[in-house]
């Protein structure tokens, strides 16, 4: 029982970080219908940028983390302006290929700058521990869960209530109508990319604090797919719930099934769950069905 709870709680923590990263993916898909295959590489770049500021430049976390976010936001704006905006109105498959190319460029640059060895991530969070139901939760997991949770709530409120949030939802819902009431949809797209890059970077930092960072961090981008497809590609609450489910599922299958069948179950389980859920609910858990008026 204790083992189960341990896995459950760390799974929730991991899952909330997945949810945060997936949020960026959903945001881009929702407003631009682009499937961003570079989301994982944005995580990678974010984590290594933080590493560079913290370990290589020796800055304190209070300075390094905001700087990392700023770099990510600038990267997001730049990518949108240089690569995606010229692709407006081009076929979806062409745009997807652009994001694949972007993933390659980002990964290659990271490898060129930081090399392909494992890097220990410095301790950035004050020691913190909590015992829940007799299970001790390690500090980095607790911080990860806490920060990701706060960000998810903040973004949900932002989309729900702020003027920009309404504009982003409007542009995502009906682009021509958004243009007709004076919403500058290009700025909405740019903002989507900036937010996506920022949450990816933050996710990278939180994952780094839990584990070491290396060049395989970009593979998290693949894990985003079960998360978002599970929740429904265009639903933010769906991404949050999907993230939690995948995080927990991964941990539980890793803990309980893996000892019986040998390695690899942890990596496969999310995709098995994905297939099963899509058989029952093709729109995902929260995906939009077309509204039909009767």
């Amino acid at each position, binding site marked *: 029982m204790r083992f189960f709870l341990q896995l459950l709680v760390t799974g929730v923590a991991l899952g909330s970080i997945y949810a945060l990263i997936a949020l960026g993916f959903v945001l881009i898909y929702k407003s631009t219908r682009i499937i961003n295959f570079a989301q994982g590489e944005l995580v990678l770049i974010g984590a290594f940028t933080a590493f560079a500021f913290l370990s290589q430049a020796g800055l304190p976390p209070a300075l390094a983390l905001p700087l990392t976010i700023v770099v990510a936001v600038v990267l997001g704006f730049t990518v949108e302006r240089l690569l995606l905006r010229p692709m407006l109105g081009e076929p979806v498959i062409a745009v997807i290929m652009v994001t694949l190319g972007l993933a390659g460029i980002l990964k290659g640059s990271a490898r060129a700058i930081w090399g392909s060895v494992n890097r220990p991530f410095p301790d950035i969070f004050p020691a913190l521990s909590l015992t829940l139901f007799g299970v001790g939760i390690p500090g980095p997991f607790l911080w990860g869960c806490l920060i990701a949770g706060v960000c998810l709530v903040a973004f949900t409120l932002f989309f729900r209530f*702020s*003027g*920009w949030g*309404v*504009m982003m*939802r*409007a542009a995502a*819902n*009906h*682009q*021509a*109508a*958004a*243009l*007709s*009431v*004076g*919403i*500058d949809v290009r700025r909405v797209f740019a903002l989507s990319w900036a937010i996506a890059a920022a949450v990816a970077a933050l996710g990278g930092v939180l994952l780094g604090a839990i584990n070491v960072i290396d060049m395989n961090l970009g593979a998290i981008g693949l894990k985003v797919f079960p998360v978002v497809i599970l929740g429904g590609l265009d639903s933010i609450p769906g991404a949050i719930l999907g993230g939690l489910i995948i995080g927990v599922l991964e941990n539980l299958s890793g803990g309980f099934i893996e000892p019986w069948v040998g390695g690899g179950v942890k990596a496969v389980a999310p995709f098995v769950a994905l297939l099963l859920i899509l058989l029952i609910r093709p729109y995902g858990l929260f995906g*939009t069905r077309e*509204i039909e*008026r009767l």
Partner: protein
Amino acid sequence: MLLEINNLEVLYNEVVLVLKGLSLAVPEGRIVALLGSNGAGKTTTLRAVSGLLKHENGAVTQGTITYQGARIEGRPAHEIVRRGIVQVMEGRGVFDELTVEDNLRAGLAVRGGGRRAAGELETAFGYFPVLKARRRQVAGYLSGGEQQMLVIGRALMTRPALLLLDEPSLGLAPLVVGELFRIIQRINREAGVSILLVEQNAQMALTIADHGYVMEGGRIMLDGPARELQDNRNVREFYLGLTEQGALKSYRDVKHYVRRKRWFSS
């Protein structure tokens, strides 16, 4: 003149010439009706003014659009909305996944995303009380008439000086059309918003308009005060379906004679 279009030429996809030298004017505070059959170029005219042409792969290749003394052809849509022109698209482009209130708030984009939304919301609800009752509902589930009211209300949130309405009566029951046109007239009179109205329902449009233009094949063929157009024999036969006696005439009787006839010839 609030809006003046001069000798406008519009090309879609660099090959399809839709407007071939169109000229019209909207005086301040008036309602101007733009009539014409399908494919005459009415919607294109509105898009050219509102800047939505680019989104449809169209471009102004010749001529000028002057609004409050400034040339606006080819400017981006959000800039034109900020200048005070807003287009209500044909076919009610509501944000169907958003609530009625969020639909309205989206109209505040040009003024910084809408912090002080309360005043504008009350104005919109003043014209369309139905929307107030349904403000928390998802817009996709509103009736056709309510959706049309919502998009007009949303356009009013931008505080326009000139409202471009594209077939507001499309697909609505006659009773609803009557109510809608009364509200459009009120918006014109009470808020002083000038209106350029594109309509298939010519009878209805000419009753509330001050001036009317009739388009055909990308040009203006006829224009005059709305009352005169209503009495014009050709307009009556083409659009109002009425003969001299005022009786309804079957389309079959009209077709051989009038369909081939051009406006020039009369």
